[in-house]
Every structure is written in structure tokens, then in C-alpha cells.
């Protein structure tokens, strides 16, 4: 059975169509990513699935229950970690978790044990009696991650789980998510605008832009559909015009001294490319990443700061 089925779901805020007839389904036990820039409609979709927003039209089934007609049943089936912290700062980590367990009808004599179990999972046992306001951003996120797990939901929603965290903390959180998914056999749906996150965590990724799903597949397949690897050339006097004429070069982008190319079949064509380029300082070849996938589908990079300056 599919954990989540979404059919022609739309959400309109006034004049803005935030979600535009999207459809997808998520298998049990899958880690599914909604990838897209800010304002693409990812969080709106998640909030509709969590019954906190009502859809304008369309249908969504979560764990077999319709979100508009059976919201209480839906909420019993899910756990959610919000993008913005939603714990009480004046309470300790332990108290926040206990509160959550009570809200989710966990048996009274099991609350202490379950709270301690999830605290262990996210390495917060030592800090459990500190007020949350004394936690760092990463600790608070871990605590909220733990909170989403106490009632052992079948489906876990993660809204930008590592937004604003430093790379080390991010890697740690990824590890926790993967451990949890395996240990507890949960279905996980997450939103992100970090390519690396979608690439390293998700079984399947839906790329969403302007409220529409523009591609949906495994990260590998999405990248495989792109013909070509990314080649980075560095040098002062590279002849860009000449390179442009090579038939196997798909796309050229200059970033200062660097030139970023998409090259078909780079293993065979690299020699000719280097010959054409002339004197270069260094070369890097990457297999395509989701970043290129996104670029390919939308014609722009996912990070807004890079939106300007693409000169291809």
C-alpha cells in the first residue's frame, strides 16, 4: 500500500497559485524528497498533508485517510518536524518531549522510557534537563527530530530539516535520519532546497517549481537523464568561442577564471576538449549532480544568489 497518495492537489492563496495540480504517491518505507527553491510550494504541500492547511482542490490520502474528511486519523499517523523551531523554550528538552508524548496519547507508564530512547538516538541525554533556550540551533533541531519520533509515527514529515545549520551538524542530522528510517521502517517525506540533501538521503525526488512537479525519479535516474558530466576548466586564456563549436559540449558557463561545461561522454571527449581549450591550469570532471538536473529542467540554479550571472 502507498503511504501517501496525492491527486491533482492545488492550493491558492488569493491570486497566487502556490500548489498547481500536483500528483504523486509515496511507497511505504520510502524516503521521498520535495526539492525546489524557496516559495516553490514544498512547505505548503507538506502543511496540507499534515492537515494544517486546507487544499483548494484535489485529493490527498495519508496512511489511507483523506486529509480533509479524516484529519484526526491523519494526524494520528504522522509525526512532523517543522522548518521553524516549535518547542517551548522555557521547558527543558525532557519536558518538551514528555509534553509531546502526552499530546500523542502515549501510555503513561511508557513515556519516560520512550523519551529517554529518542534522546539517546539524537545524543541529547546529557542535556535533557536544560531549558531549550540554552540549546544551540543544531541541538534544538535534534530535539525536535526526536520529538517527532516518540509516538512512533508511520510517516514522518520533515520540513527543511537542516535549514540554517552548519555542514557538520547537517551531516550528523542526515545520519540520524537514515538510522531512523532503517531502524523504525518509517516512510519519510522531506522538503529541501539543498541538492546534496536530496541526493544523499532520498530514494526518490520530486523537483517542484512554481507549484508544479517538473520531474520525479530516483536521484540516479534524474542525473542519468542528463547526457553528460560537468567539466570545470580553469585558465586565463581559454578560447570559449572555439569550445562552443565542439558538438559534444552542451552548455557553457563562465565563473571568473573558471569555465563550467556540460560534456557528453566525457571519458572519450576530454582529450579533444583539452586540446581545443589551449593552456589551462586545472581540470575537474564531475558526474552530473542534482544541481545540474535542476538547471536543466528550470533553466536556472536553485540558489537564488546564483540566479544572476548565468551567461549561457
Amino acid at each position, binding site marked *: 500500500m502507498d503511504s501517501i497518495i496525492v491527486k491533482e492537489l492545488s492550493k491558492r492563496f488569493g491570486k497566487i497559485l502556490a500548489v498547481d495540480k500536483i500528483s504523486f504517491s509515496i511507497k511505504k518505507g520510502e524516503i521521498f524528497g520535495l526539492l525546489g527553491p524557496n516559495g516553490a510550494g514544498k512547505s505548503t504541500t507538506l502543511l496540507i498533508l499534515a*492537515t494544517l492547511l486546507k487544499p483548494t482542490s484535489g485529493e490527498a490520502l495519508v496512511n489511507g485517510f483523506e486529509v480533509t474528511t479524516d484529519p484526526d486519523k491523519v*494526524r494520528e499517523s*504522522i509525526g512532523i518536524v517543522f522548518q521553524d523551531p*516549535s*518547542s517551548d523554550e522555557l*521547558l527543558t528538552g525532557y519536558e518538551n518531549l514528555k*509534553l509531546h508524548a*502526552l*499530546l500523542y*496519547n502515549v501510555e503513561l507508564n511508557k513515556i519516560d522510557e520512550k523519551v529517554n530512547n529518542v534522546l539517546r538516538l539524537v545524543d541529547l541525554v546529557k542535556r535533557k534537563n536544560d531549558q531549550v533556550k540554552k540549546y544551540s540551533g543544531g541541538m534544538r533541531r535534534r530535539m525536535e527530530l526526536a520529538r517527532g519520533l516518540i509516538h512512533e509515527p508511520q510517516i514522518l514529515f520533515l520540513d527543511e530539516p537542516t535549514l540554517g545549520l552548519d555542514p557538520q551538524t547537517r551531516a550528523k542530522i542526515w545520519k540520524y535520519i537514515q538510522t531512523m528510517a532503517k531502524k523504525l521502517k518509517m516512510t519519510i517525506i522531506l522538503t529541501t532546497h539543498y541538492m546534496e540533501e536530496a541526493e544523499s538521503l532520498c530514494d526518490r525526488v520530486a523537483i517542484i517549481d512554481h507549484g508544479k512537479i517538473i520531474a520525479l525519479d530516483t536521484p540516479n535516474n534524474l542525473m542519468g537523464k542528463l547526457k553528460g558530466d560537468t567539466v570545470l576548466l580553469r585558465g586565463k586564456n581559454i578560447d570559449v568561442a572555439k569550445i562552443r563549436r565542439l558538438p559534444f559540449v552542451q552548455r557553457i558557463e563562465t565563473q571568473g577564471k573558471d569555465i563550467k561545461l556540460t560534456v557528453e561522454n566525457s571519458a572519450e571527449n576530454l582529450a579533444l576538449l583539452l586540446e581545443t581549450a589551449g593552456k589551462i591550469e586545472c581540470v575537474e570532471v564531475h558526474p552530473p549532480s542534482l544541481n545540474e538536473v535542476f538547471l536543466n529542467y528550470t533553466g536556472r540554479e536553485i540558489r537564488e544568489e546564483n540566479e544572476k550571472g548565468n551567461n549561457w
Partner: protein
Amino acid sequence: MRKGTIGKVAKGLYAMWYREVKVFLRERSRLISAIFMPLFWMFIFGQGVGSIVKVQGNYQFFIFPGFLAMTIIFSSLFNGAYLVWDKKVDFLKEVLVSPLSRTTVFFGKAIGGISDALLQAIILMIIGFFLRIPFNPASVVLTLIMLVLLAIGLVSLGLIIGSFMESPEGFGLVASFAVYPMFLLSGALYPLNNLPSWLQVLTHINPATYAVDGLRSIILGTSSMSYAANLGVLIGFDVLLVLAGTWAFNRMKL
């Protein structure tokens, strides 16, 4: 209702009450102001106005029931600000996404708010003992009943206002609009029978009037209406506002 449902609702209500009380006791400024505000009013306002107002008997005794009502009015209504605050810091999302129904969430919030307000009133009652306010076991129980009845309606009103507001500042403005006329026209500070008739009309539609009158009848034995009549009006007010409150929570958006 199935047994499982009752357990679920009870745990949910307990969870929200647990948080409300923990936070209240942990925020020292709230606790300190709960103790000192009524003291200021009793001694500074009571002495000052007492020197110019003529009432039957001791003015400090006359306003004591008024201050009890005042404590409940202010702390109950402004409790709604914490709902707005919860929206702002996103804690409300955590509660609304739990399997509890919106109606249960309303009751949980209301019980928390009533506890806070009652705790402050009890502190004032303890101060009253030292001021030789003539309390006896029966009047303590009747006073508490009256205070709870006033708190139920006003906490609900605060939560209703809070459910519509997005900023704490906005809440403050709207709530002040309700709270000051209600307090000043309740008879808490001065007898109402000398007011001009158009103001008297307002005092009669003010639920706080009935609470103040009821409290005075219990504590001092002087009143203009019977205890039962006061009780009846307050219960009607509570039923109305609790219904409105559950409605407001069921339609509340984030």
C-alpha cells in the same frame, strides 16, 4: 465515548495544563507581579481612594472583593496573549498537528488559563486573611466558585480574541478595549447605584458586575442581587463563551 477516547482527551488536557503551569512558575516576572500587583492596589489605591470615597463600612474591605474580581478579569483576559505568542513562536503548530481535536485544544488552553488566574486570586485571598477580611470555610468555597465562574467566561473571551489576532500588540489593543470598561463598570472600585442611568445600563450587561456583587455578598454580606441570581448570570455567560470559544478554535487558521 469509548474508554480510549476519554484517556486520550484527559492526557491532552493534562499535557496543556502541565505546560501552562510549568511556564507560569518558571517565569519569575509573572509570579512576582502576581503577588505584588494586588498588594499595590490594596495599599496604595485602597488607602488613597479610601480617604475620599464614602461607602458603608471600611473602604479597604469594600474593594477587596473588587480586587479579587480585578485579578481574575485581567489575568484571564490577557491570558489570550499567550495564545498569540504561541502562534508567533510556532508552538501552536505542535499542538494543532497533534491528534487532539480543536475542541480539546480549546479546553486545554482554557483550563491552563483558569489555573493561572485562580492561583493569583488565591494569593490575594491569603493576603486578605492577614488584612482580617472576614473569611470562613464556607465563604472561601463560595468565593472560589464565583471566581472560577468568572474566569471560565473571561479566559474563553481572551482565547477567542487571541484566535483571531496575529500580533501580541494587536491583541493588547483589542483586549484592553474589553477589559477596562468591564473592570471600571463592574462596581469593583465604587458602588454603582449613583451612576447616571445610561451607564447603569452598561453595568447590567457587564458580567463582571454580577461576579463583584456575588463576591461582596459572600465575603461582606452586602449585595444588591441574590447569590443565586449572580451565579445564574455567570453560568449563562460561561456557556455562551465556551461555545463561542470552541467555534473560534475550530475555525482558527495558523
